[in-house]
């Protein structure tokens, strides 16, 4: 019998993972940067010294060592040389000031190469230094470090590339230990109208599920059914529904069409279009970026992509807007105090210098972000915390329930919370969802720079300016007309029937210009497609209301800043609305999403059908989103065979 102690040792050896090469490289880089910075602070202090003679020589020799040791030419002997010279510098008696000059000569080739890089970026800064000649090696080196860092940030992450109109993601190895979690529920079942005539849910403008699906397919894997939330796939695309004309901040368009995958049923398509207020008059924004700088963020598609994404976004901000940056699980809490968006350089510098080090608890980061937002808020301004993370929420408030409770409490302060997910492997989609839903915000997943462009540039106004809060939809079907119905998607957004009129119950927000789509599949009375047999002993459906309405649509919403909701009502009648490309495209995506979720109700409708339908309904597609989705359908088709 083996000894349990040896077993433990063996198990431990087996369980201990090899360090991730990228993380290791990032950590070593971080350490080297900190090392350099550490030397820098010493040097900076020396510049103000009033008695440069002896310390000057000491420092000069020391700098010489640094500049020598940075050069590849001398790597082999540096360690020994350094030790030897450290010994020497204790001894010098006179001020032989030519020593540093020697350094310059010996290291000249490397120095020139680095200096030319540096001069591109910071000519002015370099010139403004009134440093003695002997300081130049070190100064040049310091600047040289900064453009290198910038280059890594401005260059697209290695996994990105644009080929034609489509975004191509180079295949990357999936992380070995995958700890992702996804929020989802079983697909909505078919409901019998006579039993449960009322369907209630909250709208959802999140798009994370689409990007996650795309990143899986681009990596050559079918997403798991859990990862697909059909409504997020549908709502990923902008639709051009009729814009509101009256007082309401949005308008609804109902269209009843035949179901492509079932002859015996119809689709009730509800399109909601938010108004697009004149952008010129938008209120000033207060944005607090809360950025996760924990170790796991050190990958090209995480922190660098994040910094790059926020750079894109800065171009969309106005001088009256303010930006602050708070980090957690990394360097000190607030890395950028509230700064007007006009000071782009300051903000960009803060963004590009994001790196991890030291420690701040996540909870403190979150609290600090909200406190900063509260301090920035003034009347008529919109405040929002934008949390960017790869899903490592185990820092800080480690209990997801406590976290959402905290955010719910903060919601009442009027500060919105949006969640941006980055990278795969550690993504906690469930927590992201919960946070955004509780924080009155949007959850988006940024897998490519084009996605950042879509979320943070093209649709920024919608993402940042809510026009209606707590938007709930309730549809009551008429049992005399509709035997059965089924809501496609919105599984995680279901509400109780009584929640509809209860203004205390939270629901989703609509942003400026957002469109939201919900689709029901309904089975008319007498259709062959009815799945449930009538009850032998059940009561006959009430037919005393000889209405030919299919159902009745009710919408509730709150104007931002108000506590009482307003009601919009509209009957749904047979054959209402005109079938547009938008309706057909949304239907094709709904079908696609259900196929990815194993399509229980789709019969033999296939990816081919979805591709044909989506291609025919592609319409204008100025940004190429729809074309991309057709590519994804083709991929899914191939991968599923």
């Amino acid at each position: 019998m083996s000894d349990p102690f040896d077993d433990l040792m063996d198990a431990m050896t087996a369980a201990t993972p090899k360090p991730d090469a990228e993380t290791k490289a990032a950590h070593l880089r971080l350490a080297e940067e900190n090392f350099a910075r550490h030397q820098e602070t010493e040097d900076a202090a020396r510049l103000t010294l009033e008695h440069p003679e002896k310390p000057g020589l000491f420092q000069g020799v020391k700098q010489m060592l640094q500049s020598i040791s940075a050069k590849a030419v001398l790597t082999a002997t540096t360690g020994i040389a350094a030790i030897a010279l450290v010994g020497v510098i204790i001894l010098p008696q006179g001020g032989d000031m030519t020593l540093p000059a020697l350094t310059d000569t010996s290291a000249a080739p490397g120095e020139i190469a680095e200096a030319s890089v540096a001069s591109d970026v910071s000519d002015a800064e370099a010139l403004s230094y009134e440093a003695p000649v002997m300081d130049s090696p070190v100064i040049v080196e310091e600047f040289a470090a900064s453009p290198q860092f910038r280059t890594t940030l401005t260059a697209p992450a290695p996994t990105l590339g644009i080929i034609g109109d489509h975004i191509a993601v180079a295949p990357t190895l999936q992380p070995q230990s995958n700890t992702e979690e996804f929020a989802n529920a079983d697909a909505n079942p078919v409901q019998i109208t006579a039993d449960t005539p009322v369907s209630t849910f909250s709208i959802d403008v999140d798009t994370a599920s689409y990007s996650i699906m795309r990143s899986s397919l681009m990596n050559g894997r079918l997403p798991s059914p859990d990862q697909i939330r059909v409504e997020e796939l549908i709502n990923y695309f902008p639709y051009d529904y009729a814009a509101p004309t009256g007082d309401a901040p949005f308008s609804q368009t109902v269209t009843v069409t035949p179901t492509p995958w079932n002859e015996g049923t119809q689709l009730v398509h509800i399109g909601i279009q938010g108004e697009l207020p004149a952008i010129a008059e938008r209120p000033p924004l207060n944005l607090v970026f809360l950025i996760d700088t924990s170790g796991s963020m050190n990958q090209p598609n995480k922190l660098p992509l994040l910094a790059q994404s926020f750079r894109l976004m800065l171009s969309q901000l106005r001088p009256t807007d303010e930006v602050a940056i708070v980090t957690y699980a990394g360097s000190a809490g607030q890395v950028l105090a509230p700064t007007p968006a006009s000071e782009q350089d300051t903000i960009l510098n803060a963004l590009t210098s994001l790196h991890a080090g030291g420690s701040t608890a996540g909870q403190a980061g979150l609290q600090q972000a909200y406190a900063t937002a509260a301090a920035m808020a003034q009347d008529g301004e919109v405040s929002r915390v934008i949390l960017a993370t790869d899903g490592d929420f185990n820092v800080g408030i480690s209990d997801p329930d406590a976290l959402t409770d905290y955010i719910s409490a903060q919601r009442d302060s009027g500060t919105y919370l949006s969640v941006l997910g980055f990278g795969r492997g550690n993504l906690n989609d469930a927590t992201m969802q919960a946070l955004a839903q509780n924080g009155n915000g949007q959850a988006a997943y940024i897998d490519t720079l084009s996605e950042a462009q879509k979320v943070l540039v093209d649709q920024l106004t919608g993402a940042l300016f809510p026009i209606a809060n707590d938007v709930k939809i309730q549809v009551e079907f008429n049992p005399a007309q509709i035997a059965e119905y089924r809501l496609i998607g919105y599984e995680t957004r279901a509400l109780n029937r009584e929640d509809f009129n209860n203004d205390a119950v939270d629901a989703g927000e609509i942003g400026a210009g957002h469109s939201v789509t919900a689709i029901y599949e309904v089975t008319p009375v007498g259709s062959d497609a009815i799945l449930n047999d009538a009850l032998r002993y059940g009561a006959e459906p009430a037919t005393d209301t000889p209405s030919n309405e299919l159902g009745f649509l009710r919408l509730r919403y709150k104007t931002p800043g108000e506590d009482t909701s307003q009601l919009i009502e509209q009957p749904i009648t047979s054959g209402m609305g005109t079938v547009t490309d938008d309706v057909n495209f949304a239907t094709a995506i709904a079908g696609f999403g259900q196929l990815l979720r194993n399509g229980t109700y789709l019969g033999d409708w296939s990816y081919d059908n979805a591709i044909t339908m989506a291609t025919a309904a592609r319409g204008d597609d100025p940004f190429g989103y729809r074309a991309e989705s057709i590519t994804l359908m083709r991929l899914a088709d191939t991968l599923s065979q």
Partner: protein
Amino acid sequence: MRMTVDDKHLAMAAANGDRDAFSSLLARHYDRLFGLTFRLTGSRADAEDLTQDICAALPAKLRSFKGDAQFTTWLYRVTINAAHDRRRRFATHARAADGWGDWEVNRRAANEEAQDKADWLTSAMTALPAELRDTIALTMDQDMTHAQAATVLNVSEGTISWRISEVKKRLRALHEKELSQ
């Protein structure tokens, strides 16, 4: 040439501002450091975060390295202290238990019930008190003698031996309990 320079000299050079010495010193020890942080925390994510904290703080800490101890001994003491700091921070949060038993590990362990081996390791480690866990995390390092471990943990060598035998005793008890079930 560089390879013949021992840790202590590299560390002294690094403490005096030799960037190259610092880089090669850290590169030389990174894997062992990561192995230790993993054994201390029990999760890859925590190990990465802890290693990052240490890498970030090392340049400043290195100044206190005077060369009177072996570099690894010094580095491991820094690591143990950082791990304790981290545990203390977590302990202030309502539901976070320490190290091996924290919420993340529970969650992950629940997800991976199939992996009996990892489960057994986790439960065995969780069953041990923190100082015993730290002790075996340290002594598992092949090059770490009991004397060195004693220096790192600032206890006597006898204490280390006692702790190891205590771990063996507890594991045997655990094993017998498993057998009897």
